[in-house]
């Protein structure tokens, strides 16, 4: 069990700056995020899109903003638990016990939810019976490509993941690539390769088709795909891979006894605390009168929530407000020389 002063759920810009604020006032914290990288929506949804409303930063992309925030955290030692989703938050006396889907558990007086619109999960197929085959014949990510050797693999999707895997797996497997339209959104070089491989029959390409039906009992034997004119084709296949991008789901947060309205968590505007003492919500996921879903609002909310955490983490100490320009204690924490 990991002991920490505050646990942050979500490594987007708000979670990162909240960690900065906690460390600045002398508290320790750890961060859990379901993505395999730091940055949240900024890095997953719009790494290349410019943002124009970060105070004192006239223009930066989602990726640049994330990198700057990571740089700002450099003086501090913060443990990140990536590719882990918090599944359970349970009261234990004055503390909270937090457990992730990978079995990591924390004990902490403060839990700060900086979860955006929830955790990113792969979008799944919607055809009947898909659950039955999931993680066996139907996969949404590839951990071991060797299982496909000599098999027939049907890949759905039109982005980089679908195209990259179609090209890669075509070396040792029979590959069907199925996409709902003619155009692909992957890198041009990969798209060209897919067309080249289609010509040389290394890849069987089916465009304007979507998955209609799964056939098989314990594992998939074949699939029916349907085009825009309702024409159906049957394809023999051993595996079905879906690469439709990631969607955001509130997920387990809904089960923690918090007041939730339209996928957001109600908080007060003094501590950004929820209806549960010691659980805070900051950034896009929190809701209060006048809430703006801007990154700058998340920074403010995180700064205030961090001060509220101090009370519960150091009940016998008094929090003193200090400026970074003048405080010796803060400069020590930052590892910079004081005058």
């Amino acid at each position, binding site marked *: 069990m990991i002991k920490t002063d505050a646990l942050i759920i979500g490594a987007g810009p708000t979670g990162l700056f909240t960690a900065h604020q906690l460390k600045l006032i002398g508290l320790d914290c750890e961060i859990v995020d379901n993505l395999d990288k730091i940055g949240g929506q900024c890095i997953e949804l719009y790494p290349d899109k410019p943002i124009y409303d970060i105070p004192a930063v006239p223009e930066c992309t989602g990726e640049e903003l994330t990198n700057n925030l990571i740089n700002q955290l450099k003086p501090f030692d913060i443990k990140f638990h990536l590719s882990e989703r918090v599944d359970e938050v349970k009261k234990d006396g004055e503390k909270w016990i937090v457990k992730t889907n990978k079995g990591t558990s924390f004990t902490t007086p403060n839990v700060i939810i900086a979860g955006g619109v929830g955790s990113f999960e792969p979008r799944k197929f919607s055809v009947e019976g898909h659950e039955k085959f999931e993680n066996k014949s139907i996969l949404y990510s590839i951990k071991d490509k060797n299982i496909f050797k000599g098999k027939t693999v049907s890949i759905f999707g039109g982005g980089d993941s679908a195209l990259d895997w179609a090209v890669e797996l075509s070396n040792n497997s029979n590959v069907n690539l199925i996409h709902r339209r003619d155009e692909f959104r992957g890198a041009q070089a990969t798209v060209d390769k897919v067309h080249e491989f289609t010509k040389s029959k290394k890849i069987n390409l089916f465009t304007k088709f*979507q998955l209609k039906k799964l056939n098989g009992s314990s594992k998939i034997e074949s699939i029916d795909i349907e085009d825009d004119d309702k024409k159906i084709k049957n394809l023999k296949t051993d595996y079905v891979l879906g690469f439709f991008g990631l969607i955001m789901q509130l997920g387990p947060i809904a089960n923690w006894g918090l007041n939730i309205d339209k996928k957001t968590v109600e908080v007060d505007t003094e501590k950004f605390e929820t209806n549960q003492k010691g659980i805070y919500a900051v950034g896009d996921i929190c809701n209060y009168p006048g809430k703006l879903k801007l990154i700058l609002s998340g920074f403010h909310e995180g700064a205030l929530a961090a001060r509220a955490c101090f009370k519960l983490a150091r009940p016998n100490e008094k929090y003193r407000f200090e400026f970074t320009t003048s405080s010796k204690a803060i400069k020590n924490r930052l590892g910079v020389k004081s005058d």
Partner: protein
Amino acid sequence: MAKITYKEHNGTNHTVDVQNGLTVMEGAVQNNIPGIDADCGGSMACATCHVYIKEDWFDKINKKNEGEDDMLDQAYEPKKNSRLSCQIIVSDDLDGLVVDMPEKQT
């Protein structure tokens, strides 16, 4: 101003007046109409304001934006007449528009 009808998957209709200049997505969100999530807030970075447009309307509304089809690849059950409602700007010409909402957004 345009009267827009949002049709839920279960058949329930919501007809509201939407001001010119707003998007069809905003018209739904501001009127608390269920079925359109708009997780990203209209920045065309998700596909949770996905709607189906009847054929006779499809050609009358503004054309798809660059990148919209890329996002629609990631929508729940996209069809030929799929659009992201955050990319449809309301004007008088859209008076009487009916949009069908998918069974779910995520």
